[in-house]
């Protein structure tokens, strides 16, 4: 109901946040699955370094993450120059930059949830599929991923919620441009700068709390279900 009462500016911020968060989650999902699989199933030299890098955005101040992104993806940065030359892609002061910032900051959450789900899968089931003639990739697609689905969804939902709330890294790389990069947190921050801003911001604050709260409940529910399914499956396999 509250959403219906939003002003055009507020709507713009909410809509933009949703678009940015979707892009961040969709764009980073394949890499998150690959990383989670690597960390859950493989032991290799330097694993601890990969783990550290993946989790770094969780503990770095977002402003620092944003600054590093700006340096890397900027028009003078190594990656940024390459992107512009080869793909004509510019991330700085653009919603796509906001999506990259969100994706990086949310990445550890996504990987963690998927990794747990992958680790919980009974590998006997995968072995059974292999023994019945399924290839590695076929097994992964048709057995592993479906079994990990609750974890996948939970990871996506958590990452989505984290993206919706991303502030520090976003403002560094994407700036605060109304309608283009001013997502919910940037909008609220901006409004709160002037006296009486609290009155103007509360509607968006409510939307923000509701979206994040729902996402947390959904993620928790899915994780709980994954746990129960695992127990049931164990029972059927062993029993």
């Amino acid at each position: 109901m509250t959403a219906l009462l939003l002003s055009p500016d507020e709507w713009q911020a909410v809509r933009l946040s949703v678009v940015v968060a979707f892009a961040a989650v969709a764009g980073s999902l394949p890499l998150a699955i690959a990383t989670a699989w690597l960390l859950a199933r493989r032991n290799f030299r330097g694993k601890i370094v990969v783990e550290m890098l993946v989790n770094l955005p969780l503990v770095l101040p977002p402003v620092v993450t944003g600054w590093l992104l700006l340096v890397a993806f900027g028009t003078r940065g190594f990656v940024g120059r390459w992107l512009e030359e080869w793909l004509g892609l510019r991330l700085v002061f653009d919603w796509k930059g906001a999506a990259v910032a969100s994706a990086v900051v949310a990445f550890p959450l996504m990987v963690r949830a998927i990794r747990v789900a992958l680790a919980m899968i009974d590998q006997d089931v995968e072995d059974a599929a292999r023994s019945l003639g399924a290839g590695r990739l076929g097994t992964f697609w048709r057995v592993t991923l479906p079994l990990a689905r609750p974890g996948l969804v939970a990871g996506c939902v958590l990452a989505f919620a984290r993206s919706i709330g991303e502030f520090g890294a976003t403002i560094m790389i994407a700036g605060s441009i109304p309608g283009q990069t001013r997502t919910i947190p940037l909008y609220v921050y901006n409004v709160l700068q002037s006296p009486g801003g609290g009155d103007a911001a509360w509607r968006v604050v409510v939307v923000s709390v509701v979206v994040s709260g729902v996402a947390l409940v959904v993620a928790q529910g899915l994780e709980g279900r994954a746990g129960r399914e695992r127990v049931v499956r164990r029972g059927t396999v062993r029993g």
Partner: protein
Amino acid sequence: MTGCGPRGGPERDPPARVLVLAAASTVDAVEEAAGLFAAREGADVVVSAGPSSGLAGQILEGAPADVFVSASAEWAEVLRARGRAAEVVGLLGNRLVIVVLAGNPAGVASPADLLGERVRWVALAGERVPAGVYAREALAHAGVYGGLVERGRIVRGGDVRMALAYVESGEAQAGVVYATDVRAASGAGMGAGVEVVFEVPSDWHERIVYPVVLVGRGEDATDVRREARAFFEFLQSHEAARVFESHGFEVLTGAGARRDAERGEESNGDQLPEQSPERGG
């Protein structure tokens, strides 16, 4: 707020702590002044920095602050209206400048050049923080603000330092920031990457004033600790004025200007009326 002993006891209390909340753009200078004061008075001065809006919010929510150096007259006014300000004085002035990346690759020499082809982004502070408001006024006065908006060239940082960072990183070709920020950045070895190409005349925007607020404790705004008032007055001394000037600020209430103000000679009708409750002493 902290465990008050019985009043009127012996004068030598344990060294009192003065909590100063300072707008981000003033923190270097305020810290230096606080150091001088602390050394001389044997007081413990703690400076906490942040955006004026956040600091004012903290005071309104009951933070045990003694002195508030605000970048915005508006927020000082809010504190007064809510009965948290024992005294407000317009302490500092500042100037706006246009900065570009060192070497000036986009060839900006004046506000009009911001509309040129080689400029893609102009960085300003947020439209609701004072630096962003002054910048908009100045660019509008120069007749380029509308054009910049139409061309979608304005990018806002959270605060003025972030706008400067956009220019330093080379992503924004120009920015409008406080003169003191450029100086602070180069002092920290960061601003080597930017240069000032245009000093904005001060009559292009509303006068830039940093008020300093003597914060009242608790219910009664006039309930002010002795050390708090001492630091509040120290900020208006010649000694502090030298510190602020060395950081590039204009000092509006040196000891001289303050005497003038008290004689009622300074009445250019600006937005910051002085308020000096009776001080009985």
